[in-house]
């Protein structure tokens, strides 16, 4: 294989990865990292470095639309970013310290959990009852959003801000360690933990993902783990794929196809896990 072929394969594969990621609402990282490591035999740290810069590109694109629709709770995002960026620094630091095979193991486990989470029923736990907690009131985290389906402004109160911070630290750490956006952890931390409406949680998570990714991307860059031959085509490919995905059909709703993808993701996560457990080949 020539270097040109390698770059073009990375690019084409990342378009597919970004496309599937945006259909499933998972982001490209979970799809592209197994492709790079299992199929193209790329060192997992290079794969993670390439994925983390791609996430910045995709999240910045989507964030603009959400902010404009006033779905994003900017104050919640700013507060929680303290935790996600600290977590991302921790994760990025750890990724440079532990052996590559353990990154495969953790990736396999997190990917399997993410796949199962896709089956979660998205129920709305938000409420406007009660006083709101002292922290949430002090930081003025309570808010409201315009629900197009209901046709009215929906107010909500935020609870358990400190639990949210703790969960966000973990989400940031996974993001920095594995090069994924970890929206799959951020959204439940907000809607189940802090009782934000599901739409606000999704938009706010998307807003934070880019900033979180920048924290560990800086670390990977300075360490020399961002390989231009891989990160260049992967970042461009994932963005193109995600844009096509968003334009073609938005979020995939068909239950059967979702189940098929969940099964495929579980099989791939098992392969990642096995590769890690078998050790260096």
């Amino acid at each position: 294989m020539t270097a040109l072929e390698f770059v073009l394969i990375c690019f084409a594969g990342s378009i597919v990865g970004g496309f599937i990621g945006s259909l499933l609402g998972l982001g490209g990282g979970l799809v592209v990292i197994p492709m790079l490591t299992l199929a193209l035999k790329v060192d997992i740290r290079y794969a993670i470095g390439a994925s983390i810069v791609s996430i910045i590109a995709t999240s910045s694109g989507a964030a603009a639309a959400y902010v404009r629709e006033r779905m994003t709770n900017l104050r919640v995002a700013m507060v929680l970013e303290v935790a996600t960026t600290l977590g991302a620094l921790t994760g990025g630091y750890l990724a440079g310290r532990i052996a590559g095979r353990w990154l495969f193991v953790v990736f396999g486990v997190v990917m399997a959990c993410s796949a199962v989470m896709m089956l979660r029923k998205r129920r709305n736990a938000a409420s406007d009852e009660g006083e709101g907690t002292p922290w949430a009131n002090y930081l003025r985290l309570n808010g409201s959003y315009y629900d197009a389906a209901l046709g009215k402004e929906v107010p909500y109160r935020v609870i358990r801000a400190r639990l949210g911070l703790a969960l966000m630290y973990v989400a940031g750490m996974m993001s920095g360690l594995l090069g994924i956006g970890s929206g799959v952890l951020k959204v439940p931390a907000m809607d189940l933990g802090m009782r934000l409406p599901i739409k606000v949680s999704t938009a706010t998570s998307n807003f934070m993902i880019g900033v979180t990714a920048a924290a560990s991307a800086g670390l990977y860059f300075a360490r020399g783990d961002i390989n231009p031959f891989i990160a260049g085509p992967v970042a461009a490919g994932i963005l193109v794929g995600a844009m096509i995905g968003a334009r073609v059909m938005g979020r995939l709703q068909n239950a059967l196809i979702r189940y098929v993808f969940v099964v495929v993701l579980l099989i791939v996560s098992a392969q990642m896990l096995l590769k890690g457990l078998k050790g260096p080949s």
Partner: protein
Amino acid sequence: MTPIGSGAASPSAPQEDRRVVRVEIVISWVLRVGVVTSLAVVVVGLVLIFVHHPELLTSATRLQDLTQRGTVFPHTLSEVFQGVMQTRGEATVAVGLLLLILTPVTRVAVSILAFIYQRDRVYTFITLTVLIILLMSFVIGRLE
């Protein structure tokens, strides 16, 4: 229909927050431009690599050189800068990726200005903390 822009602004939202939202909308668009620009630089860099090294187009590379750690890429500011001055492809790709990484950092920095303008001390402090953490990541990576 999804409400767009000021038509969706609720009367309950505090005046000051509406200003923050407006600033964020502007920033979001700047970020989109930033993302597109940085990826354009990345593509130019990739093209430059192959222009300068035509042998990469035809001869089979040892893939290990590309996919395994050991090869050193430009990853300090001075290396990247010197490389770009010599129109080296790898360094140009690195500049594009660095711009991409810096776009969210810029967002945070501009948000700080918005909060200072509002005299919101608590949120100025919170956002400043995030910025410091982001800048620390480059330092920690260098120290390793």
